[in-house]
């Protein structure tokens, strides 16, 4: 029993919850700290992956496969989001010659 040995060897589900929380908070910190728009998109991917990790951990903990399918759909949405976001960024770079997030407020007018 592989799963039983994992969860009985001192590794609790709460350890995975704290690991996923730490990854998510690192992503939030990156979004607040970095000013490059491409790095911001990467930090969003990091946050999505933290959620994926938590979903797989709970799916394993409860022995149900549903959580892993949600991970699958999150990956689909992340791929679509990265495609559209990056193409918008390339367009903005062609106009402004920068990817600094603070210059994007020129979109207001």
């Amino acid at each position, binding site marked *: 029993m592989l799963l039983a040995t994992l969860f009985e060897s001192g590794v609790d589900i709460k350890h995975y919850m704290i690991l996923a929380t730490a990854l998510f908070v690192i992503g939030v910190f990156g979004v607040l700290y970095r000013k490059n728009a491409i790095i911001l998109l990467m930090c969003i991917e990091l946050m999505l*992956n933290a959620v994926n990790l938590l979903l797989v951990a709970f799916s394993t903990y409860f022995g149900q496969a549903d959580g892993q399918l949600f991970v699958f759909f999150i990956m689909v949405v992340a791929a679509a989001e990265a495609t559209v976001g990056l193409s918008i960024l390339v367009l903005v770079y062609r106009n402004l010659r920068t990817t600094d997030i603070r210059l994007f407020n020129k979109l207001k007018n």
Partner: protein
Amino acid sequence: MIFWLLGGLTIGTALMVVLSKHPVRSVLFLVLTFFMITANYVLMNAQFIAIVNIIVYAGAIMVLFLFVLMLLNLNKTNEPKGSILMTFGAVIAAGGLLTVLVAAIRDAVLAPTMIDANSENAGLVENLGELLFTKYVLPFEVSSILFIAAMVGAVLLAKRDKQTQE
């Protein structure tokens, strides 16, 4: 203990993504982070998700990011820098969020685990495929529409610029 080693490496590489000044180095550290998360999936016997994570994230999405970074010719010299006040605020906000979430998780009462003889096979491709095409067949089809919309959007955004130049 392999969990502690993997968890520490995951958090360390994720921190390097945020803290390294060079954007390309940041992307490469993110690929490393995805490999560490994949190792966590293998540890939890979610084999299909582990393979898909490598193929889709490390293989496709990160290569897309790397291509865009190289196309835009971003490097350390023209990397935008934030003010010290914003850095201070980001540290305070992230630290506060981490404290609140960990404090909430510490007091959480969880249902007992339901691992039985069948849950060994829960993450295998046979079981996941059967569930995907019976219980979750509608979200599966809707996600294909989402993909078409994203593809059309990307092509449209890339093409419009060419028309305005003419």
